[in-house]
């Protein structure tokens, strides 16, 4: 797999994502948000951080970066597109995923390890997991997933909810921690699997996410 990690001004988990991908021997490039010609990647990652300071609304300004045109084309072409944390916020602002990430129910940044239920284990992002209860790090101040009731209902019936919080850390609609698009190739999640790939750092539950991505695509 050939992957690109998009670097927006203010991204700060780009390095972590690159480190994690390399650990799984993925060939990975960091590409600038201003780039437009990045077609030959199998997967595009939008990393965590505070793109453009998260000013106005998280993701609101990054969605206009030149690379987002390419990201949309890649998404339409069925390539893998993953937004983690700030990346998720950008994907919703760019309408690649429904809903919006809003200020936590109790205002304030949360950095913690939280219990996660893998709601849909049959996606290209989760299929390598051999259990449905995992622990992942979260680190966000605007991580409350919000969508109107109809949208949430639709996400549920179409199995687009990939991850749920076991305990609703931020007040998300229906405990939603991660969703994918209808086609199943665009995935946004607030937890940080890239921070959970080394047991030395206390948590290796994110490994299943990377293993899933590397497994043959046709399983889905």
């Amino acid at each position, binding site marked *: 797999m050939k992957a690109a990690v998009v670097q927006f001004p203010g991204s700060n988990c780009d390095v972590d994502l690159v480190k994690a991908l390399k650990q799984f021997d993925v060939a990975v490039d960091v590409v600038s948000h201003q780039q437009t010609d990045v077609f030959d990647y199998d997967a595009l990652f939008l990393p965590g951080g505070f793109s453009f300071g998260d000013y*106005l*609304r998280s993701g*609101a*300004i990054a969605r*206009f970066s030149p690379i987002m045109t390419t990201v949309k084309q890649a998404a339409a072409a069925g390539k893998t597109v993953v937004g983690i944390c700030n990346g998720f916020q950008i994907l919703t*602002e760019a309408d690649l995923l429904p*809903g*919006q990430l*809003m*200020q*936590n*129910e*109790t*205002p304030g940044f949360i950095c913690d390890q939280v219990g996660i239920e893998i709601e849909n284990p049959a996606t290209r992002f989760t299929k390598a997991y051999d259990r449905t209860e995992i622990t992942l790090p979260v680190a966000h101040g605007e991580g*409350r997933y*919000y*969508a*109107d009731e109809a949208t949430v209902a639709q996400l549920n019936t179409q199995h687009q909810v990939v991850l749920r919080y076991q305990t609703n850390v931020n*007040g998300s609609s229906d405990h939603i921690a991660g969703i994918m698009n209808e086609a199943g190739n665009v995935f946004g999640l607030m937890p940080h699997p890239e921070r959970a790939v080394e047991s030395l750092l206390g948590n290796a539950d994110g490994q299943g996410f990377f293993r899933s991505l590397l497994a043959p695509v046709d399983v889905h």
Partner: protein
Amino acid sequence: MYLGKVYVSYKPSVLDPQGTVIQNKLGQLGFADVDSVKQGKYFEIKLKADTKQDAATQLEELTQALLINPNTETYRYDLEEVSA
């Protein structure tokens, strides 16, 4: 030169945690008559335009393009001519 003042607030159905926090704090501070608090955003935007109508069009366009998220927010604005 025109000065547009744009007021953005959450749609009534959307939770406003910051408003709730402020409301509770006001209660603790003894402001017992406060019934509800909603927090929104406020922008002051200066722009060049030939006519007020033109300024209004620009202001609406840029607000919808960038300042608000139509899923959760609504807005209104005031517009006045000012010296540059």
